């Protein structure tokens, strides 16, 4: 290569990696390509790629749009977006047919006259801001806050039906009721409302300027970031409203008593006749529907801790990349689950959780526990079956929790289909622990070995293959091949050689035989 070739190569490399060349350099680069066929061809290919990116987009099949819209609107729903058109008169009926010529002539005259008038007025009068008359101003659009169920644990109903986490947003007027369960809602922007057991709330207003939730019974804890000016959030009961602009507080409604407890910030509590009280952090006010004044008292640390625990799950969905964790119910209903050492929650449980690894701890009534790590991918749902929480001590009442071997295999297969080998391995482990004498418990050893190899855990993989080979079976060729690969990964050449020889002797026509014969030559030796 000449120095000129080198120079061009340098310029082209810099250009290709996104560096901005000076005008002279760019000219030099293009000039060289005009004289060198190879360089010219290279630039042609780059130009072709660029042209593909700049080409106008072609129409797509309507089915593509239809399917996307269908996926978005899982259930038909309507929501009023524009309020200004409410009550507007219907469009007037079309005018009766007239002579077209007459219509055009009259319109032209009117337009010409109007133009002359505007021109004259514009010259004579000083300019001033143009304010359109009220009737032609753009309608003010009422914007809604998005409210969505982000945690549902145990029995939770939305407007009388079961609704999963990650499904459609909630509508104004809908109710959320927790029987013995727990639930959290996320209302954009920055409002989390968590409900204790035996709580019913109604989404009274989701208008962005004034979000109101009515607590019909039970306890609702709200944590919200500071509201923008002109925007408010309040938790209400039948006769009391607790308005906040950025704080953590709870409203509890039992019978005719409303208890407003403030953990952080300040909350404005009002009662229907107009009685108003500002409640500061670590304080509470109890209001009875019957007569009586609003009385503030200090709130104990224990009570405060209990309230904060209600919203502790918030950290699960605090990240930007979220997936859904779906823990199935246990057949006996006796298990509870904690996520990342949070509060124990009833099953079934669904929650938004940040992408990454999470620790799930299942706890039986008798105190025995089972812990697994699970990985949640952004935008995906991670399903987990209840584990086998066995080994309870005598006298404890923890019932056996055993999904069938087939269901565990099916779950593991689903995880594999989603490219999640670690989760599949956990399920295979569960299967082997629950059904140690079953045929499946042995068969999955080979699968587990291959997965361990994929994950780079060669020693574990070797253990799995050897465990299978101890008793033999239909998968001996696969197990032997896996053993040889694991030994190779571990750098144990002589043993790898023996494993390959054993494979070739027993299965000379096996799937891996050609590769192993080649490998045997590489290994050399006697």
């Amino acid at each position, binding site marked *: 290569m000449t120095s000129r070739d080198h120079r061009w190569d340098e310029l082209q490399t810099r250009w290709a*990696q996104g560096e901005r060349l000076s005008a002279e350099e760019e000219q030099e680069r293009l000039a060289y390509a005009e004289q060198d066929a190879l360089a010219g061809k290279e630039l042609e290919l780059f130009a072709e790629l660029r042209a593909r990116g700049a080409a106008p987009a072609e129409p797509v099949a309507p089915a*593509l749009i239809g399917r996307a819209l269908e996926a978005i609107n899982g259930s038909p729903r309507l929501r009023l977006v524009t309020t200004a058109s409410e009550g507007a008169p219907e469009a007037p009926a079309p005018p009766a047919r007239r002579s077209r010529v007459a219509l055009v002539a009259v319109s032209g005259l009117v337009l010409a006259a109007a133009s002359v008038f505007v021109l004259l007025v514009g010259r004579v009068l000083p300019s001033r801001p143009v304010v359109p008359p009220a009737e032609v101003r753009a309608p003010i659009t009422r914007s809604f806050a998005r409210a969505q169920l982000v945690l549902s644990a145990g029995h939770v109903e939305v407007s009388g039906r079961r609704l999963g986490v990650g499904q459609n947003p909630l509508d104004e007027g809908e109710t959320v009721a927790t029987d013995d369960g727990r639930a959290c809602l996320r209302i954009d922007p920055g409002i989390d409302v968590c409900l204790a057991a035996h709580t019913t709330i109604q989404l009274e207003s989701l208008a962005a300027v004034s979000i109101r939730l009515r607590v019909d019974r039970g306890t609702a804890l709200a944590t919200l970031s500071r509201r923008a000016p002109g925007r408010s959030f309040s938790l209400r009961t039948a006769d009391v409203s607790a308005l906040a602009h950025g704080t953590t507080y709870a409203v509890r409604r039992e019978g005719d008593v409303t208890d407003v407890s403030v953990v952080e910030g300040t909350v404005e509590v009002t009662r229907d006749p107009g009685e108003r009280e500002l409640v500061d952090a670590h304080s509470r006010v109890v209001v009875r529907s019957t007569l009586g004044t609003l009385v503030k008292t200090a709130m104990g640390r224990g009570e405060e801790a209990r309230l904060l625990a209600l919203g502790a799950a918030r950290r699960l969905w605090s990240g930007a990349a979220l997936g859904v964790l779906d823990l199935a119910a246990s057949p006996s209903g006796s298990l509870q689950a904690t996520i990342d050492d949070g509060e124990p929650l009833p099953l079934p449980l669904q929650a938004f959780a940040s992408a990454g690894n999470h620790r799930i701890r299942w706890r039986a009534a008798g105190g025995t526990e089972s812990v697994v790590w699970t990985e949640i991918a952004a935008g995906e749902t991670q399903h987990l079956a209840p584990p086998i929480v066995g080994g309870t001590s005598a006298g404890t009442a923890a019932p056996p929790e055993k999904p069938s071997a087939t269901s565990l295999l099916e779950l593991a297969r689903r995880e594999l289909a989603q490219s999640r080998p670690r989760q599949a391995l956990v399920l295979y482990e569960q299967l082997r622990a629950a059904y140690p004498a079953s045929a499946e418990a042995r068969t999955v050893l080979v699968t587990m070995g291959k997965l361990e190899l994929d994950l780079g855990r060669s020693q574990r993989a070797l253990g799995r293959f050897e465990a299978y080979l101890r008793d033999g079976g239909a998968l001996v060729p696969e197990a032997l091949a896996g053993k040889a690969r694991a030994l190779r990964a571990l750098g144990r050449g002589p043993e790898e050689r023996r494993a390959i020889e054993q494979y070739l002797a027993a299965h000379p026509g096996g799937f891996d035989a050609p590769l192993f014969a080649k490998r045997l030559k590489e290994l050399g030796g006697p």
Partner: protein
Amino acid sequence: MKNYTSSDRPALAEGIGDRVESLVTLPDAQADVELMAAVAANDPSAQRAVAQRLAPRVRKVAGLLCRSAADADDAAQAALIEILRSAGSFRVATSLERWADRVTVRTTMRTAHRERSRRGLLERWVPADLLPWGGPPVRSPLEEVSLDSLLSRLSYERFQVFVLHHALDFTVDEIAGLTGAPPGTVKDRLVMARKQLRKMLRARGGTTDDKS
């Protein structure tokens, strides 16, 4: 209720024009924010308008980033759903088209990654002749040099950054943000892809002085 149509706002010029747009506030950008707010509020006419307006562009971007038309269709559908679902996060700082491009790129890469993992697993377990996509293609070193033959020979990581930069006009920093790879790695992939292109051209031209 306002009825939105896909022609509520004229289609924007594609390519480098959008890059300029992202630096200024467009006169009709506010209309897009309102349109997307309506989408976030589940207004069906707004959803349809946005889907119709963006679908061709989404399919084009997905098509450039996928190696097969079937994968591109899947990725385009997933991206369109993601765009509609993320409508609430659309801000005025960028054009709707460019914002949609980013969502499409992320979704397409995620879809492609999942598909490659699935294929990888299948390839481990199923003999090559039984794979739905068959075995690896047999290529002659003297086959015609074309853009498609070059792209098909690049590893997916190189292919991705090569297309993002040279076809879709994303900067190195933008690609780093989209792919999660450090900018240095992105540059390295661009350089290596270019070297591969150069090598192919030399091989076809019979030149043997390839030192790259």
